[in-house]
């Protein structure tokens, strides 16, 4: 009897232990739970950014055996990314580039009128959220990493909300229009302080033009005249182009204004400048500049002036009335008068 009770106790203990193990195991091996990631995208200071196509790509999967509970997803095994306690800020950009280069896609979602995109029923993991569609008139959303679920102590949040850095209206692209002034010397030494002027004229007065406070603008023709001293770079300034300029070509002429400095021959070449606004592979605006001299392609404008001073230059003209004879005659006359009266007095005294 005693033996039977002992055996029963042992069996009960074993059963209880097994149940406990199963319970713990069940708790840890709960069925795969999904969650959601809600991304709210804004423009500038708070306007919602609708119609942005976003993608959520799994970059790290849940792994109980990993030190931090996550390991790199197979698609990113070659990316060099590893899950660390503190993910570097540049990790998201690197993963974004890797995903783009290897055409790795994830779950897509489009932001609604409130700028919100919802990725629903997402398995646990670390996700890269990136914008995959054409950002249009806005800058592309900065890619970022988000962990789902969010873990704080023993608490897990499976409905994650993310507010990435706001996008901005796409900045205009700008170019700097410039030319070069050269001086060729025939004879003599050209002075260093000669000023040369150059004029940039738009083919259409509505063409974008540089804003140059040191130049002179003509409101009737839209032209801009800049001046420089001596040889060197001629800078008209930056011209900005906006998204609405995409696909357009703007034409300008650049020429030197004829000066009249002594002994200089001026360059009469007229350059045509054509600026075409396009998009690069990333969808960013770019401006391509092409120069021409008449019908021929040319490099950036170069204006050459020739200095040739004669060996015996003419003097500055005499521009004075002759007043010195007046002084000379008056002075001489006064002296003679004084001398004459003095001599007369002596003559009268001796007489």
């Amino acid at each position, binding site marked *: 009897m005693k033996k039977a009770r002992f055996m029963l106790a042992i069996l009960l203990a074993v059963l209880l232990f097994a149940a406990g193990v199963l319970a713990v195991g069940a708790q840890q091996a709960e069925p795969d739970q999904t969650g959601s990631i809600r991304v709210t995208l804004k423009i500038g200071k708070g306007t919602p950014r609708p119609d942005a196509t976003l993608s959520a790509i799994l970059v790290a999967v849940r792994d109980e055996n990993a030190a931090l509970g996550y390991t790199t997803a197979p698609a990113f095994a070659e990316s060099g990314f590893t899950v660390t306690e503190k993910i570097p800020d540049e990790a998201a950009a690197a993963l974004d580039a890797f995903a783009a280069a290897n055409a790795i896609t994830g779950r897509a979602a489009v932001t609604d009128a409130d700028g919100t995109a919802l990725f629903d029923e997402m398995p646990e993991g670390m996700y890269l959220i990136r914008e995959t569609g054409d950002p249009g008139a806005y800058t592309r959303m900065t890619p970022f990493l988000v962990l789902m679920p969010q873990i704080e102590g023993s608490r897990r949040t499976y409905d994650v909300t993310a507010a990435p850095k706001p996008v901005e209206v796409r900045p205009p692209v700008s170019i700097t229009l410039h030319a070069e002034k050269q001086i060729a010397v025939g004879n003599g030494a050209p002075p260093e302080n000669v*000023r040369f002027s150059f004029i940039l004229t738009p083919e259409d007065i509505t063409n974008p033009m540089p804003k140059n406070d040191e130049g002179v603008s003509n409101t009737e023709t839209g032209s801009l005249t800049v001046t420089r001293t001596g040889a060197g770079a001629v800078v008209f300034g930056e011209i900005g182009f906006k998204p609405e300029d995409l696909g357009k070509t703007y034409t300008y002429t650049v020429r030197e204004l*004829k000066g009249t*400095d*002594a002994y200089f021959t001026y360059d009469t070449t007229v350059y045509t400048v054509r600026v075409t606004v396009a998009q690069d592979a990333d969808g960013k605006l770019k401006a391509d500049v092409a120069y021409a001299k008449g019908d021929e392609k040319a490099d950036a404008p170069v204006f050459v002036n020739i200095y040739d001073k004669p060996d015996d230059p003419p003097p500055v003209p005499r521009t004075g009335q002759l007043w010195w004879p*007046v002084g000379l005659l008056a002075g*001489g006359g006064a002296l003679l008068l004084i001398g004459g009266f003095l001599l007369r007095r002596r*003559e009268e005294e001796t007489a």
Partner: protein
Amino acid sequence: MKFRKSTALILSGVLLLLGAAGFAVYNNADSDRAGKSAASIAAVIAEGLPTKPAAEATPQNGNLDRFVPEMETKEIDGALYIGILEIPALELTLPVRESWSYDALKLSPCRYSGSYYTNDLVICAHNYASHFNGLRTIAMGEDVYFTAVGGRTYHYVITNRETLNPDEAERMSTPDGWDLTLFTCYIGGATRCTIRCSLAEN
């Protein structure tokens, strides 16, 4: 009656003084003549100024290769003028001829070199009281205006006075950053009173 030496000296002195007076009278009359001539020419130019300044000249017929802009001129009595120079402090309103010669200088100031387009215009004139004599003593900071025949007015401010020798032609026509230069002879005629001006506005 014996002709005394003192009488000869006194008579000579009187003759010289009369000569000096004659010279002075002639110079003043010449200056008056030049002033009246300049005033009448300036009035003709002013009458013909457009109410709205002309637009800057542009290439014609697509002939871009050889286009060179030049200052607009107005012909009066066979001579070409580029505009009117005003110096309020001296109460001067004078026409400016397109190019200089000694005959031209007897009528009005003349362009010596440069252009208002390239901000290096140099104007010379005789030191008549009615022309540029006042430049010798004009104060710095005074306003100078040049109105081109096309109607656009350029406003300058006097910023420097220099004395140049006759053999400094290059320095005269290559102003060191100055936008307008006016020059005339000093009384002795040996050197040039040179007034440098900077552009205040267009």
